[in-house]
């Protein structure tokens, strides 16, 4: 494997008395000490690491540990106080404005926590932004933007505006905008943190899918260790601007460098008790107040399922219907969908630990419906998804 990005002694100090703070940092003083002595905030403290070509490199740390600052120095959105960033061996710090712009246009793209889509532009116009500013012909850039949108599964929304899409879809557009440039490096700053758990899992899976074929070098920031373990080929843990440990997920879990990292892992140990909310997937639902048997059948066909979940206008779960029963209704020209709804569906809520459901699910194979306290359907749990989630979670006790 070749080295794609190399970071040497990268340092950022915010505020006044930067020169003095720089000396103190070299003497090995810590962030709180320097803040007290000079009033300057250490964003990143002499970070050193290497990122291999084609890997997902996850940076983790508590809030304020310098993750965003670090990633923004890699494309020089934040100008480093000291140190070097080498991309393919080329020193980013030595580049003039024009050369830097060129690197940003061709080599790396960024995906933002709150999507960073331009509200006055349509989806397709957002996706082609990077190409547009490079001066790519309209027809050509439309084509490439469309391909990128297809890659992330957004089709048919070209002329909508960002605020008409859900968060998950907006972030897909954000990702498409990054992919449209066909960059070698993707910088993703908590790109999935603003999404709800379902969308988040979807997006993680999709990123892994895309990565499978595109083999980008991805620098991914996260504060969620589960996410880091799932995505990362290497994980780097930061505290107070300092790099505490870099290694494979395995390394980090088995040889935590110090108490801080250990505490981090313990946190995941507790959260590794997966809950229903973590592994549920989106069911095919039918609104009984709106849909009749024919529409129901069509939706089941489109989604290739033989059972569908029936809810009312308020998304309250009523039960499930079987395709055969619905076909029966259609034959007899009946429109009373309710008459074939089976109401005895196993249900649970989002907080239930998976371990409690495991037995039932693996024995009967019947999915659980996940509802909230109002009885509204939030998702369903199927056997495959549970096993998948457990397999992806390397520290799982079920392994």
């Amino acid at each position: 494997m070749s080295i794609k990005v190399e970071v040497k002694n990268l340092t950022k100090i915010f505020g006044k008395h930067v020169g003095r703070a720089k000396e103190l940092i070299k003497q090995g003083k810590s962030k709180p000490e320097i803040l007290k002595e000079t009033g300057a905030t250490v964003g990143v403290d002499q970070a050193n690491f290497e990122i291999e070509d084609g890997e997902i490199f996850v940076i983790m740390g508590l809030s304020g540990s310098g993750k965003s600052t670090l990633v923004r120095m890699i494309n020089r959105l934040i100008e480093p106080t000291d140190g070097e960033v080498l991309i393919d061996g080329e020193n980013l710090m030595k580049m003039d404005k024009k050369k830097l712009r060129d690197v940003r246009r061709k080599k790396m793209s960024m995906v933002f926590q709150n999507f960073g889509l331009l509200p006055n532009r349509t989806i397709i116009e957002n996706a082609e932004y990077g190409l547009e500013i490079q001066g790519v012909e309209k027809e050509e850039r439309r084509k490439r933007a469309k391909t990128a949108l297809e890659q992330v599964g957004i089709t048919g929304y070209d002329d909508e505006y960002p605020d008409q899409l859900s968060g998950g879809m907006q972030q897909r557009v954000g990702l498409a905008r990054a992919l449209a440039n066909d960059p070698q490096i993707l910088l993703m700053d908590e790109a999935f943190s603003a999404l709800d758990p379902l969308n988040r899992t979807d997006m993680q899976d999709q990123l892994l899918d895309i990565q499978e074929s595109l083999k980008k070098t991805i620098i991914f920031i996260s504060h969620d260790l589960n996410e880091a373990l799932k995505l990362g080929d290497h994980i780097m843990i930061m505290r107070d601007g300092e790099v505490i440990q870099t290694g494979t997920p395995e390394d980090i879990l088995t040889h935590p460098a110090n108490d801080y990292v250990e505490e981090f892992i313990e946190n995941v140990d507790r959260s590794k008790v997966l809950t229903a909310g973590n592994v549920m997937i989106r069911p095919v639902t039918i609104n009984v107040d709106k849909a009749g048997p024919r529409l129901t059948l069509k939706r089941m066909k489109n989604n290739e399922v033989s059972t569908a979940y029936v809810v009312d206008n308020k998304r309250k779960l009523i039960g499930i219907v079987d395709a055969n029963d619905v076909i029966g209704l259609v034959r007899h020209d009946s429109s009373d969908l309710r008459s074939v709804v089976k109401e005895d569906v196993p249900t649970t809520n989002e907080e239930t630990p998976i371990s409690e459901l495991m037995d039932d699910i693996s024995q009967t194979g019947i999915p659980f419906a996940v509802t909230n306290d109002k009885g509204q359907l939030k998702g369903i749990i199927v056997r495959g998804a549970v096993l998948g989630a457990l397999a992806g979670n390397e520290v799982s006790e079920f392994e």
Partner: protein
Amino acid sequence: MNSIPQLPLASWIDSFVDWLVQFTGFFNAITNFIGGINNAFQWVFDIIPIWLFIILILGLTFYVNRKDQRWSLLIFEFLGLLLIWNLDFWRDMTQTLTLVLTSSLIALVIGIPLGILMAKSHIAEVILKPILDFMQTMPAFVYLIPAVALFGIGMVPGIVASVIFAMPPTVRMTNMGIREVPAELIEAADSYGSTEWQKLFKVELPIAKTSLMAGVNQSMMLSLSMVVIASMIGAMGLGTKVYFAVGRNDAGGGFAAGLAIVILAIILDRLTQSLTRDHKG
């Protein structure tokens, strides 16, 4: 108190204005330029028959509100313009409109770039802020005196005084609009390798548009509020009617002309506001 001599502030300013007056050529050129814009507007307004003018305004209103039609506004405009015609204020109204449009146009052409500069440069902001405060709070009458000294009497000094008085909101709101563009969007623009100009035209200005247009709207209303004052130095229009009515103690005539100004103000205000609303157009 008396031991401290009084500062000769007034005479300093006088000598400054006197000093400026020697650049007659320069000020003549400006006068001709502004006069040219003004005359062009007036020429167009004079050439259009009144009935066609009314139709055009109604059509424009209809067009800018095409997504969310406002019938009451259309009816108001129709009746209001008919009233102005009926009261025989039509030419005065177009003169006032010309004055407002010319000074708004100049305020916009100077104000928007200044606002951008102010948003981009801390130094520019520190320098411009007090100047803007000064421009806006100094009683507008005061501008008339040097305006006459430098630009003579007539439309042009009226326009100059209006521009000075009316420009600050455009500058301020442009500055504010650009500064309030979310940091993430600026980062997005930069991280994809936009040049400064691309960032300005593709991200900052479109996002600041609502705020910017609100500034233009305010500037327009302020320049309209200047028309009576400007009439004192010979800027013709509805303001002149009001000014003369004051001189003749003619309450009826004064109110009639005042009402015409109000009608014009409402039409201009609603039209520019609709332009603001119509984003994503």
